[in-house]
């Protein structure tokens, strides 16, 4: 096929394409919205263009970072992709890699989530880059993102420094027609040059390495190729300028055009927000009287301009939280340009239908059983589809990947030290999250003699982010077989002495295990009890073929108490039009049959149960 033609690519696909075109030979990632589609795109395009590359879903971002880093030590190009909070997990190797530097080009792709739409913070990775002293690019469109991947590799190789490509949700999930080029074929072979002063770098070497890092940054901030781009005005507003980066720049361009201001005012696009070009800083501060900086999400450019007169986040012209939508930027521009504001122009927060676990989701059954068995329990949980267990009253905390197990231990110690009595603490964690960061917490909890229940919701996939395989399934990113690592083996190896496995669809057995687990926690030499709740995700089409399908109906006995709606919340159970009884929406019911055990008067009937 013609490889130079235009393709419609999502920002994440464009980035993946860029990675393949740049001749990268190893890409590692951990899924997380809005970054999840990058690795799949690398898989697809490397296959399509017959490029040889090691591509992996690593167990977490720190691991991904380190795997990719070593590939770069051998002189080959490497990329690592994650969401912004993933960089928190990878921050340890990230910070140090700036000092030690790299050999083959090394690009750190981080997707921020201003808003946030699907994250626990709206932190700005550009600020992280600044504190690590790592250059960062900030694309304003999918097309630009792809282009910047190549530039990032080149810059990285020229200065032997990691380079970050910071994207945001609106770029990651925008689609655009993007020109595609054939990949570069660098044909490098692995060649690790030993250099203990650098790759081992004990403290005595770090002063020097830090010095060298500072020199690199000093040179990079003078690179003309990466200095801000000017779209000049016609001089009619000669004391004004607008500086912007990322998708906020794109919004600003369209707005200025609508407001008939494009071509009237000097507009700068900052493509590399850190390190900010020195000449640019001087030019802005000496050449303009009214300066507006529009960037997401923290004032990174603003900070480096060190000019207290700037209009932006510090002056509170721009809100210090939330996404900069075009509607918000419109108000900002009008205030800056002293134009009248339209009444009621600011948009209200849009509230729609809240998300919920899918019909037939095995997590719902597990949550229902937990909540029913321990009405007074404390329920730490974690990040994934199952955070939605909140709707069922079975999720009380959600903090960051893997935190639930450590929090379970913390809750136990807090209560137990008062008078020895403690409530039942039932933690829920997904399989992928368990691999990611749950294991150290579990070892710690066992060792510290905490007593609580951990339910590992094992649906054999990373469902929330698009069903990426976990190490237990043993399928690698490219679809070939890896060596499976089994959760029960890991749990036992962490020192856990109570372990059960059960399909949560079997509510009765599952409930009896929960009770047993609670007894174990409270027994004389009890400790942490683990139950593996095992049932495939209903989005796994293959697995669903093997599942019995019941035909469901609700009898006249339904009293309309809505117990099932309030406590089980399957989207297929709905109130009938006059609200007197509950009916089953046959269009979305998958016939799992679990709800038959939920109705207190037995009005929900499951029949049949043959396979599809």
């Amino acid at each position, binding site marked *: 096929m013609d490889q130079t033609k*235009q393709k*419609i690519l*999502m920002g994440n696909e464009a980035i993946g394409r860029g990675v393949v075109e740049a001749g990268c030979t190893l890409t590692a990632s951990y899924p997380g*919205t*809005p970054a*999840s*589609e990058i690795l799949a795109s690398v898989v697809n395009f490397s296959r399509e263009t017959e490029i040889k590359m090691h591509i992996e879903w690593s167990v977490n971002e720190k691991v991904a970072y380190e795997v990719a880093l070593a590939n770069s030590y051998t002189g080959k190009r490497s990329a690592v992709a994650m969401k912004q909070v993933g960089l928190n997990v990878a921050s340890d190797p990230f910070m140090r890699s700036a000092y030690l530097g790299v050999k083959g080009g090394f690009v750190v792709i981080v997707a921020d989530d201003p808003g946030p*739409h*699907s994250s626990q913070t709206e932190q700005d990775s550009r600020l992280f880059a600044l504190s690590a002293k790592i250059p960062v690019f900030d694309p*304003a*469109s999918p097309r630009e993102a792809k282009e910047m991947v190549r530039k990032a590799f080149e810059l990285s190789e020229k200065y032997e420094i990691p380079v970050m490509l910071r994207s945001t949700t*609106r*770029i990651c*999930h*925008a*689609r*655009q*027609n993007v020109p595609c080029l054939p990949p570069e074929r660098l044909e490098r072979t692995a060649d690790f040059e030993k250099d203990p002063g650098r790759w081992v770098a004990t403290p005595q070497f770090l002063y020097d390495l830090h010095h060298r890092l500072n020199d690199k940054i000093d040179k990079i901030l003078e690179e003309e190729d990466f200095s801000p781009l000017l779209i000049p005005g016609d001089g009619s507003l000669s004391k004004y300028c607008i500086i912007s980066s990322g*998708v906020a*720049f*794109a*919004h600003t*361009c*369209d*707005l200025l055009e609508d407001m008939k201001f494009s071509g009237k005012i000097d507009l700068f696009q900052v493509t590399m927000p850190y390190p900010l070009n020195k000449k640019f800083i001087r030019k802005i501060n000496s050449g303009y009287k009214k300066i507006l900086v529009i960037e997401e999400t923290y004032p990174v450019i603003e900070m480096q301009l060190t000019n207290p007169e700037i209009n932006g986040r510090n002056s509170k012209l721009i809100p210090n939280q939330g996404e900069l*939508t*075009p*509607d918000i930027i*419109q108000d900002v521009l009008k205030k800056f340009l002293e134009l009248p504001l339209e009444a009621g*122009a600011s*948009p209200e927060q*849009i*509230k*729609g*239908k*809240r*998300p*919920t*676990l*899918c019909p037939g989701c095995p997590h719902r059954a597990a949550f229902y059983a937990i909540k029913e068995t321990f009405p007074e329990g404390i329920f730490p949980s974690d990040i994934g*589809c199952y*955070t*939605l267990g909140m709707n069922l009253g079975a999720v009380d905390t959600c903090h960051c990947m893997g935190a639930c197990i450590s929090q379970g231990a913390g809750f136990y110690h807090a209560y137990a030290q008062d008078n020895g009595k403690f409530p039942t603490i039932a933690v829920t964690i997904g399989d992928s999250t368990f691999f990611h960061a749950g294991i150290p917490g579990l070892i710690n909890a066992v060792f510290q003699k905490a007593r609580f229940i951990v339910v590992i919701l094992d649906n054999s996939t990373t469902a*929330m*982010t698009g069903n990426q395989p976990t190490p237990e399934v043993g399928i690698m990113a490219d679809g070939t077989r890896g060596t499976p690592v089994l959760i029960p083996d890991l749990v036992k190896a962490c020192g856990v002495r109570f372990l059960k496995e059960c399909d949560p669809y079997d509510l009765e057995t599952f409930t009896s295990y929960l009770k047993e687990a609670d007894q174990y926690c409270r027994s004389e030499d009890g400790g942490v009890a683990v139950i593996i709740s095992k049932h495939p995700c209903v989005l796994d089409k293959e697995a669903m073929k093997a599942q019995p399908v019941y035909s469901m109906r609700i009898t006249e006995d339904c009293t309309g108490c809505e117990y099932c709606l309030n406590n089980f919340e399957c*989207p297929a159970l709905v109130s009938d039009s006059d609200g007197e009884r509950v009916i089953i929406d046959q*269009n979305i019911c998958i016939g799992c049959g679990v709800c038959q055990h939920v109705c207190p008067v037995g009005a929900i009937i499951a029949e049949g149960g043959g396979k599809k």
Partner: protein
Amino acid sequence: MKQQIIVSGIGGQGVLFLTRLFAQAAVEEGLDVLTSETHGMAMRGGTVVSHLKVGPFKSPLIRMGQCDVGLFINASNLDIYRNFIRPGGRSFVNTDISGEYYNIDATGLAKECGSLLVTNLVLLGYAVKEGNLFCDEGVMETIIRKSSQPDRIEMNLKGFKAGVSRN
């Protein structure tokens, strides 16, 4: 040519598929296109919306009061996104209740076609017919053929045509 379109529904109704069809159609017509999509948690049955901008735009997002055409696979989303539609813009809504919009019982027609999965395509067909869109039926048909999974092409076209021929 500049056109701004919103497609909205709840997760699982095929909003992304329609968005992709529009984007392909724009490229087929030689036009630049930018879209913005909802991913993540909201796809689990929550409210989702796509923005589509055809023509020389830079920003992937549509502002309030700027959208030319809105497609609402889930009728109640009209309340949420109504103020995106510009005065004189057209909304296509999957409902049998008429109002100040173009309504079509897309779910009912899809059922008649034999698959609820084509509800989105029925609505698309109607919008392509009546929406003054940048692309015509013929182009959209070609794109549906190209973009559907092989075993779904016929059903998708059936749904699309049911929407086009609604009177």
